[in-house]
């Protein structure tokens, strides 16, 4: 049963515009959320995270928003650049233990020059 869902397998955006990637989760125990970015033939790399005590975290062009009541988070990329083209994985973590990070299925972002 998928606890973290990314319902959009792909997204295309013009360069310079905003990219919005969405993620939904079902487990109310999740207290930390992360986004990973993956280029072809490479491993996923950490991009940005947010604690459940916050509703927004910003790092340069990347902002993550968390809506706990809706169990929804989103990643905004502004402005989008061709180098942002990659697969983005949403992940959620519950407190305690070693096996507590759950990944979504990923969204492939294509930024069109």
């Amino acid at each position, binding site marked *: 049963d998928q606890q973290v869902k990314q319902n959009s397998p792909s997204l295309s955006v013009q360069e310079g515009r905003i990219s919005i990637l969405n993620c939904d989760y079902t487990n109310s125990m999740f207290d930390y959320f992360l986004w*990973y970015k993956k280029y072809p033939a490479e*491993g996923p*790399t*950490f991009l940005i*995270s947010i604690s459940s005590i916050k509703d927004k975290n910003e790092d340069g062009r990347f902002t993550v928003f968390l809506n706990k009541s809706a169990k929804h988070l989103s990643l905004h990329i502004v402005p989008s650049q061709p180098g942002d083209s990659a697969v983005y*994985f949403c992940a959620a973590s519950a407190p305690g233990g*070693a096996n*507590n990070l759950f*990944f979504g*299925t990923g969204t492939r972002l294509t930024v069109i020059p």
Partner: protein
Amino acid sequence: DAGITQSPRHKVTETGTPVTLRCHQTENHRYMYWYRQDPGHGLRLIHYSYGVKDTDKGEVSDGYSVSRSKTEDFLLTLESATSSQTSVYFCAISETEYGYTFGSGTRLTVV
């Protein structure tokens, strides 16, 4: 990536043969993980380790075994490879429960 390496990067093997993938870290992190990535499924946990000789099963552990005899090495073995195990395998390391560092992956093809 610096601190974590996977070998081999690519492997083609025949159905029914055993295969071992290696993950090596130089970060002295406590936790190590093996994931597989498949289209439509994202990253699924196969096995993980929380210390030397301490391992446990993940979501998709059937057909796989692991061993961790040293902090730095985590081996994934396919006892008898099947075509359904054709995938990209990622190792990850972590010192806390937040934030994993992934290796570059091993592309395994079972023919």
